[in-house]
């Protein structure tokens, strides 16, 4: 009886392993394909075989030295731009989100519920409905075609993403605050000295999501930057590479560029994964 139960479990586990192996392969095969073809040589633009027949590093060299075409495609510059924008907007966004969610979670004030509802409602409008208006506001401030504008765009709405971190703060026992208050701590001290040190997962989660944002947006950034190619981010830059005018020359460099963008983000993400999961789990249920 016991033996057959064990056997059954082994068989079940074998099926699960099989399933996971197959699915795992399905999941990463596009990226293996991308990686392989970023090293593809030869004159073909699109690969006509699954595994490239010629291998070369030329795509990467061209990407960074610009020797493959006109000087207006400057990938290293775009990479740097994106990095700078991502760093700044990540700092501002993280601070805003944590401040707002702490206030909503821990402080009780008039109109708190109303603010939360308004926040939720604002999140339901399609994002790029407001693109044109944002563009002209930035223009009135003289900021269009600058990286500052991008930082503003990526961090201004951050406060609206309070749900998950508020959910996380909600799970920290209130008794801690109360004990601290009795000891004479102000709300400010409680936030910095008690709550924040306990919130590593959600801080990492917020930092991670806001850092990745600028690497992936290609719509708002394009509208703000217009023809100022020197200020492009990698996302618009790579989009430009597969534009009709460039596809023939730059497709393989586009693949290489995609790898260059994807690898650091992926590594970062995998390293921080643990916190991401904790943050999302704790915050998600309550949020």
């Amino acid at each position, binding site marked *: 009886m016991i033996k057959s139960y064990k056997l059954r479990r082994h068989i079940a586990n074998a099926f699960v392993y099989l399933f996971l192996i197959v699915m795992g392969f399905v999941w990463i095969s596009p990226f293996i394909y991308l990686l392989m073809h970023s090293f593809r040589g030869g004159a073909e633009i699109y690969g006509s075989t699954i595994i490239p027949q010629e291998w070369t590093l030329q795509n990467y060299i061209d990407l960074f030295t610009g020797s493959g075409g006109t000087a207006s495609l400057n990938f290293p510059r775009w990479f740097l731009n994106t990095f700078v924008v991502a760093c700044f907007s990540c700092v501002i966004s993280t601070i805003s989100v944590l401040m707002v969610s702490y206030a909503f979670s821990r402080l009780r004030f008039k109109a708190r519920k109303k603010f939360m509802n308004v926040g939720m409602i604002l999140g339901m409008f399609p994002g790029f409905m407001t693109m044109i208006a944002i563009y002209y*506001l930035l223009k009135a401030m003289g900021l269009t075609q600058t990286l500052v504008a991008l930082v503003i765009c990526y961090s201004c709405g951050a406060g609206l993403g309070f749900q998950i971190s508020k959910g996380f703060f909600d799970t920290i026992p209130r008794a801690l605050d109360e004990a601290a208050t009795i000891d004479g701590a102000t709300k400010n001290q409680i936030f910095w000295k008690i709550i924040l040190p306990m919130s590593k997962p959600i801080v990492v989660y917020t930092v991670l999501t806001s850092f990745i944002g600028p690497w992936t947006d290609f719509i708002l950034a394009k509208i703000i930057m217009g023809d100022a190619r020197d200020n492009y981010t990698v996302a618009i830059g790579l989009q430009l590479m597969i534009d009709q005018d460039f596809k023939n020359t730059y497709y393989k460099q586009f693949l290489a560029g995609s790898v260059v963008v994807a690898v650091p983000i992926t590594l970062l993400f995998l390293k921080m994964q643990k916190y991401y999961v904790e943050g999302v789990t704790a915050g998600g249920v309550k949020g």
Partner: protein
Amino acid sequence: MTYVEYKQLNPFQRFAYNTKKFFCNIPHAVAHFFTALGKAIVKFFVGIGKGFANYGKTFVKGDWATKLSYLIFGVGDLSKGKYYKGILFFAVEVLYILYMAFFGWGYLKMFPTLGIQAQRTEYINGIIPKQVPGDNSMLILLYSVLTLVITVVVFAIYITNIKDAYRHQIMKANGQKPTSFKYDMKQFLDGKYHITLMSFPVLMIGIFNVLPLIFMILIAFTNYDKQHMPPGTLFTWIGFDNFGSLFNLVEGAKKGYTFIKLTEWTLIWAVAATFSNYILGMIFALMINKKGIKFKSLWRTLFVITIAVPQFVSLLLMNQMLQSNGAVNILLSNITNSHVEIQWLNQDATLARWVVIIINCWVGIPYTILSMSGILMNIPEDLYESARIDGAGPVKTFTAITLPYMLFVTTPQLITQFVGNINNFNVIYLLSNGNPTTEKYYQAGETDILVTWLFKLTMNSQDYGLAAAIGILVFVICATLSLIVYNNSKSMKDEEAFS
């Protein structure tokens, strides 16, 4: 069912009961939503009425300084020795007047017409054409909205100023001294800490979210399109015409037809995308977390890479792989040893829709795996125990316990995902770009959802007014759905459970 009866049920039956109650409650929740909405509106107007009553009452009871505060900001505070506040109030008034005089009023007065003087051509030396700029409808609208928002804020400050003046008057009458500057500042780190925390984010959201949103909502009531484009031409108010053309169901009215069809597909898409990710993701998570399975973090990592790689890379790659000469067809050709040339995305609407939904699983399931793993571990073991005693198999256990439990616990998350999918621009735009094309729709393809249509209308055909109207309708759909479910969801009501 009474409480005692409920207590006698085993956990498994309790669960079924709760789930049933949740779903039976939906019609009630809908009704509740509308009554609550009605009540809120009534409350709002009553509030305004009360505000006016207080406004009058305070004036009657106020001393000279309070009365003067009705005209000059901050006099009340200044007269009672609260200098910094009084000066701030006064500065607001001065700045507002200057703003209105030199900037705001000029635009606001053109708000009703959105400009009358169109651009015209003059000739330098009789031959070189030169455009003399006329009114710019868009800037008029944008700055009018800005001015209106500023006016509302200043009005709120004005009311605060009066209240503050009256409060200090009462305090003085009771022999109390106004609080010191230092004390007030300290309050911002403690009792009024929420103001310190919230003001910067709220300001940013106000300028870059609320203001543009009001602007775009107003755009929906104008004829801002390719034939009415500032600075070359003017646009003006047209009332509900944009909405009218979306709801025009007369045979042959293309915009109305497109709207109905796309709404239909958007909803199908949102339901399919949300639930396929949710259920499949849960199954994946269960498998990874199954007892006796090794290398859990390796499996998770394999799936999670899709989250880390930017979507414009992964989805464009997918698009390329699904072309008729792409990797998928090459692979199929190699396997079947014949020439396979399936048009996955470009020809057959049904096929393309399936492909989009399936690829979306590839994109979305990892998110579910990440967010579910923790919660799945928290399902009370006794639920499974009692199910096993009832003789339920793994499928039955999943449909009867795991799924309802998760649905119950993660409803808010599910709603967020549903709303997210209605607005899921990236997957559609990058993967299929709305293809296959169809002649029946106005500026849209078979797999376009409302938001990608909105985007195409803005970018390709400059139908800004129509696009804004669609944006509003998308919002209405999202908001109604989520409010109903939020109101109905228990986990929302339990907000204070941990406190």
